[in-house]
């Protein structure tokens, strides 16, 4: 996830504050719709898509048909669980889902998911058998890795054979691993490294134990799925039939999204992971409450959580998102953790005062490189600014918070640091892996390097293009500029790289071109649609593609990306990454014509 400054941009958009040009938000955690309003969510989502999506298309039979396929694919992309007979049953609904959704009915999702869980359970029983079975690794046979080519299995026996090969492959991979060897630096080699010696010892019992655990974790993850999560997957599948960047975010996902934009949260500042059913501290955020308190350590197991003076809730085998929800809470309040320490296995109780946690590791960072240290014989100072995402705390900006998270402000801070350190000969702005973020931040950051003027133009399907400009003239940096991009630099990154290129302001270097996303999304709360005036219920939000954007030279970046002036060889450049590899790219047939900006 990637995305955020003080908006000095003359952003004249009236749509909403949340204009995004981010791309890589993965709906990782699915949230709760479980209140009286939940039946209204599908109705509202349909209404919002029909009214606001750039394609201006109805949710109709055609959408219904695609939705059936999309949802099945979401649950079983590898065709390893459903049988053809299941799929045939689901397909009977292919002309009904639009009407059902508009009546607030998501039962189809529940039905499909129930069948999925039954199949999953059957598969896991078989998997456990297969893990303990003997396999012949000398036979010449292969396993298909292209699900697109594969039909759904007709019989259980066919599925059994797909899984036999899969488990055989798992065991084989473990058999090929190099065990405990050290490399030339004395580091233990990774388990993924293959052993050239076919006679190397192999502990099959250990491999079987690992596999049983792996598949139990997979099963447990699905077992804890709540109905609300299924509804989120389903509604997101609906959105995906319109374009790959439109999605439904249930309240929990929306909270995670807000955190990624604001770069802060309220909690204790510890990242957790799950191991064998136990929530375990994976890292502690410097400066957060847990770090200041000092008692909680990496590898501690959190076996219970209590809010304030309340009773402890057992957290072993609990879904991680739930544990995290319980630990988070308003700054200043107390959360008590029952901890089994990683070092001594003692049980301890820590009471921690929740506080604001700033996610500094996701901020813009700068460094001055003295080239003589890296390229002997050269003498230059180069200021590198790494922008991981175009984050922006929209709410903080609206509330006029003095220090709301903002990419442009942080870039300005780094530029000021370069200046106070005596200046630099050139600046490198590193946008590799930057998937985008807030449109207004892309404009503001561009504005720091180009003269005041148009940075990008946006257009809805029907409306006239709108030119978005940066209209301040102070603080423009004239130092020579190099922008580094790769195939995962998307959206807001492409706006910045495009503006720098079109104004001839700097050199774009990296993969042959950027990602190729040319659309703008807006995050619209569903509650507002349900009850427009007061007491808006927390029903999540729809992230909707509402506009296309165009570079100052009039070119769209959709599927084209921003080509580099200098291309460096990279593996990433050859991978199937980019808008053209996503399903149903938006507005493929219409629009995307060049719209030259008329500079006034």
């Amino acid at each position, binding site marked *: 996830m990637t995305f955020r400054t003080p908006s000095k941009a003359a952003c004249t958009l009236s749509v909403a504050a949340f204009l995004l040009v981010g791309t890589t938000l993965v709906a990782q955690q699915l949230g709760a719709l479980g209140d009286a309003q939940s039946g209204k969510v599908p109705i509202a989502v349909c209404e919002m898509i029909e009214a606001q999506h750039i394609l201006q298309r109805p949710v109709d039979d055609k959408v219904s048909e695609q939705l059936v396929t999309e949802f099945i694919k979401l649950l079983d992309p590898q065709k390893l669980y459903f049988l053809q007979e299941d799929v045939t049953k689901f397909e009977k609904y292919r002309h009904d889902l639009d009407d059902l959704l508009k009546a607030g009915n998501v039962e189809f999702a529940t039905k499909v998911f129930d069948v999925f869980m039954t199949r999953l359970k059957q598969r896991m029983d078989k998997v456990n058998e297969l893990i303990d079975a003997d396999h012949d690794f000398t036979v010449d046979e292969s396993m298909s890795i292209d699900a697109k*080519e594969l039909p759904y299995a007709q019989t259980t026996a066919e599925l059994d054979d797909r899984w036999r090969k899969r488990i055989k492959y798992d065991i084989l991979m473990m058999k090929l691993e190099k065990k405990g060897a050290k490399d030339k630096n004395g580091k233990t080699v990774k388990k993924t490294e*293959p052993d050239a010696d076919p006679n190397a010892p192999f502990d099959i019992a250990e491999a079987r134990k690992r596999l049983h655990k792996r598949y139990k974790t997979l099963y447990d993850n699905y077992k804890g799925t709540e109905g609300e999560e299924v509804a989120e997957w389903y509604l997101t599948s609906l959105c995906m039939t319109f374009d790959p960047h439109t999605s439904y975010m249930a309240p929990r996902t929306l909270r995670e999204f807000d955190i990624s934009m604001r770069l802060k949260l309220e909690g204790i500042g510890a990242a957790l992971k799950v191991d064998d059913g136990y929530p375990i501290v994976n890292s502690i955020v410097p400066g957060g409450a847990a770090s200041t308190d000092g008692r909680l350590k990496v590898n501690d197991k959190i076996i219970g959580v209590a809010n304030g003076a309340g009773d402890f809730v057992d957290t072993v085998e609990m879904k991680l998102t739930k544990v995290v929800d319980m630990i988070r809470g308003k700054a200043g309040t107390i959360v008590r953790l029952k901890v089994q320490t990683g070092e001594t296995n003692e049980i301890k109780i820590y009471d921690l005062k929740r506080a604001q946690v700033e996610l500094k590791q996701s901020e813009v960072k700068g460094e001055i490189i003295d080239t003589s240290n890296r390229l002997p014989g*050269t003498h230059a100072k180069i200021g590198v600014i790494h922008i991981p995402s175009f984050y922006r705390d929209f709410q903080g900006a609206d509330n006029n918070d003095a220090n709301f998270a903002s990419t442009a402000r942080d870039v300005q801070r780094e530029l000021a640091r370069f200046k106070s350190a005596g200046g630099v000969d050139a600046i*490198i702005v*590193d946008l590799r892996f930057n998937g985008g973020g807030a449109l207004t931040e892309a404009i503001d950051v561009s504005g720091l390097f180009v003269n005041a003027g148009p940075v990008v133009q946006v257009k809805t399907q029907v409306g006239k293009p709108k030119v978005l400009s940066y209209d301040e003239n102070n603080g423009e940096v004239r130092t020579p500029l190099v922008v580094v991009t790769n195939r995962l630099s998307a959206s807001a990154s492409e706006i910045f790289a495009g503006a720098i290129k079109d104004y001839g302001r700097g050199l774009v270097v990296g993969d042959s071109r950027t990602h190729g996303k040319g659309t703008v999304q807006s995050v619209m709360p569903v509650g507002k649609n349900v009850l427009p005036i007061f007491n808006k219920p927390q029903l999540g939000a729809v992230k909707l593609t509402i506009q296309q954007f165009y570079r100052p030279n009039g070119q769209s970046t959709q599927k084209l990306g921003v080509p580099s002036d200098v291309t460096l060889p990279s*593996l990433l450049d050859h991978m199937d990454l980019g808008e053209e590899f996503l399903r149903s790219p938006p507005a493929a047939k219409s629009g995307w014509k060049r719209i030259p900006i008329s500079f006034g």
Partner: protein
Amino acid sequence: METDTDFVRVNSDIEKYLARKQRKSVTLNEEALRKERVEEEQKTRDKADAADDSADEPVFADNPYNKELLSITLDYLTALNEKKTAKK
């Protein structure tokens, strides 16, 4: 850059990747798979090393790619200066 061993290796990785990308299946024969995997060993090790420093990532790591970026930036500065001189 063409002769730089690091980029030569990247190019060979790209070739191998493109060949593999076309594949629709993977062998389940131990001998064949071992041979394939050992050939790819070097690349796996590079990736593992890259993952190791993710915990405390430097802003601009000292690696061949970034060195090349610095060289390009210096060339760019030279070109800009020449342009300025020519204008004078």
